[in-house]
């Protein structure tokens, strides 16, 4: 989506939708200029451009026991996946984590659609004091048979999840979040390395086999515009922006 004439195009996950009302739900974290501007919008305001849905939908099948792991704002894309997986006859265990209690989202929704829900916070203000991977490790030790792990969140977390499941040969799917421009496969800004090959997240993804993704490379490429992003934010939200 693009918020105004001078705005950047940014990708957001469709967290929920209501076909009858013709609405979609987006959940975003105000981290930079565009998301801050988005946060300033009031009910009834307009977003200039919106395009989607893009990418490939999650493959929903009966796998057996599935663990869905969301971190930070990545939790936004968990409920739709968890719900569909549950409806397909899977046992769904959700683990969500955040830096601190206030940043936890969708707890209630996930409680309803998951067979089990675990919460972790980095600072221990709610749930387990530590990382989502702590819970995952425990689950793996306790009940050997986990058939699929789905993970969305900060790259460092997805990398950690992949490292935990790799020795156990548990199929793990990560939803990647590289910097995008067009979202149609035209620019290659979103390219990631999977199995040593270049893939475009916007058309080939966003979900990839986490054991084959080069997460360090993704982390590096996410830093490409740090200086500019800081400048943009420091410049603040100008009068002409709203």
């Amino acid at each position: 989506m693009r918020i105004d004439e001078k705005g950047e195009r940014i990708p957001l996950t469709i967290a929920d939708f209501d076909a009858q009302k013709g609405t979609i739900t987006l959940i975003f974290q105000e981290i930079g200029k565009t998301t801050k501007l988005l946060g300033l919008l009031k009910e009834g305001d307009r977003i200039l451009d919106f395009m989607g849905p893009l990418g490939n939908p999650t493959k929903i099948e009966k796998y057996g026991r599935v663990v869905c792991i969301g971190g930070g704002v990545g939790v936004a894309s968990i409920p739709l996946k968890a719900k569909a997986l549950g409806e397909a006859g899977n046992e769904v265990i959700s683990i969500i984590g955040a830096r601190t209690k206030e940043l936890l989202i969708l707890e209630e929704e996930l409680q309803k659609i998951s067979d089990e829900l675990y919460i972790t916070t980095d600072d221990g203000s709610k749930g387990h004091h530590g990382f989502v991977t702590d819970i995952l490790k425990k689950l793996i030790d306790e009940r050997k048979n986990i058939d699929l792990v789905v993970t969305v969140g900060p790259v460092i977390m997805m990398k950690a999840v992949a490292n935990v499941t790799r020795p156990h040969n548990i199929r793990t799917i990560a939803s990647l979040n590289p910097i995008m421009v067009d979202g149609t496969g035209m620019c290659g800004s979103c390219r990631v390395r999977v199995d040593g090959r270049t893939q475009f997240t916007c058309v080939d993804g966003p979900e990839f086999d986490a054991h084959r993704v080069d997460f360090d490379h993704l982390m590096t490429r996410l830093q490409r515009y740090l200086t500019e992003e800081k400048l943009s934010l420091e410049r603040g939200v100008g009068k002409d922006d709203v």
Partner: protein
Amino acid sequence: MTFRIPMPEQDPEKRIQNFGEVALGYSADQAVSEAKRCLQCSEPGCIKGCPVGVDIPDFIECIKEGNFDEAIRIVRQKNHLPAICGRVCPHENQCEKFCLLGKKGESVSIGKLERFVADYERQKGFKISSKPTSTGKKVAVVGSGPAGITVSADLAKLGHGVTLFEALHAPGGVLIYGIPEFRLPKEIVRAEIDCIKKFGVSIKTGVVIGKTISLDELLEEFDAVFVGSGAGLPRWMDIPGEDLCGVYSANEFLTRINLMGAYLFPEYDTPIREGKKVAVVGGGNVAMDSARAALRLGANEVCILYRRTEKEMTARQEEIEHAREEGIKFKFLTLPTKILGDEKGWVKKIECVLMELGEPDKSGRRKPLIIKNSEFTIDVDTVIVAIGQSPNPLISRTTEGLQVTERGTLVVDGNGMTSKEGVFAGGDIVSGAATVIESMGAGKLAARAIHEHISQK
């Protein structure tokens, strides 16, 4: 022997600091003087050289007489986008190549005259003749590049209801996201688009066919579909280091600048890295545009690396000349083999080898061969890969029954119809990356065929 009237241009020193148009256009007097050079041949070669067959001697004659309104009317009979073609067509390979005057000296500046009358018309304000009566037929056009624009305009003029779908937020295709402001001001593209809206074409942006709506869904709602989705998929060299930070596809680089306005960052929100030492790989228009845009962003040194020689470069001659005047360096017979990065993952150097030309290949150009032990490196902080584009497979992947070639282009018959009944295609999606005017030519052909197809139904 007379020489061409040169077109006034921005001084190179000054223009590399702005994104304003380089060539400033003829004055009326200059245009008339240039028009007077035309011999009005009885068997003019120029018309044959023009892919859409503009009546060149006729419109030039009108300019000579000072009747610019009639001149543009003649051009528009065959060409919907004269202000654009006058600026970006490779005239030296088309009409001007066959101009009699060119055999001994300098051909008539046909492209510049075309631009002159189109600009004259735009400044005066377009006149739209009354809308035709509606036929009740509906056509969907996918992609708003020159092919899609041409099909839309032609069909709308015949009274068909046309809906034009564009994936990006702004219509125009490469004309908007690829070709930079200093060569083709976006104002002009927008004016042309406004023109087709006045014919009654409805434009829907932000719709990705194959994702938002499938092609088959379009077929249910429309009597015919035209696919003009272009060749937007960047090609890579497949060498180590191409994923480093600071390596761009030309598409990303130019899209950030042109479509997103990154050259006006931070006023516009989309960032771009302002490289100081930039290497651009490739020898076509896309490479020239990237190099000259990098220079305007503030690079100290921009170097074009091309594996063949100047003679084989596919860029328009004018662009090569302009790039040279602006201080862009050319390294011919040079093939990058590796991009090297620093510990943080940013580009530092590019390693290349030297080439020599061997026997001609399929394209008739002599095939470059690597010279052994000729490796050398160049220090750079930005690399832009401009070695070509392939068709975007989004539509063919999500549509059953569309026949595709090995190169990913769509297969069409002599009328531009694909292997799927009622689905037509043209432009870069069929030919592979080509030119604006060839895409328009394909659009014209398809428009005629679509008209016949739906009129029979």
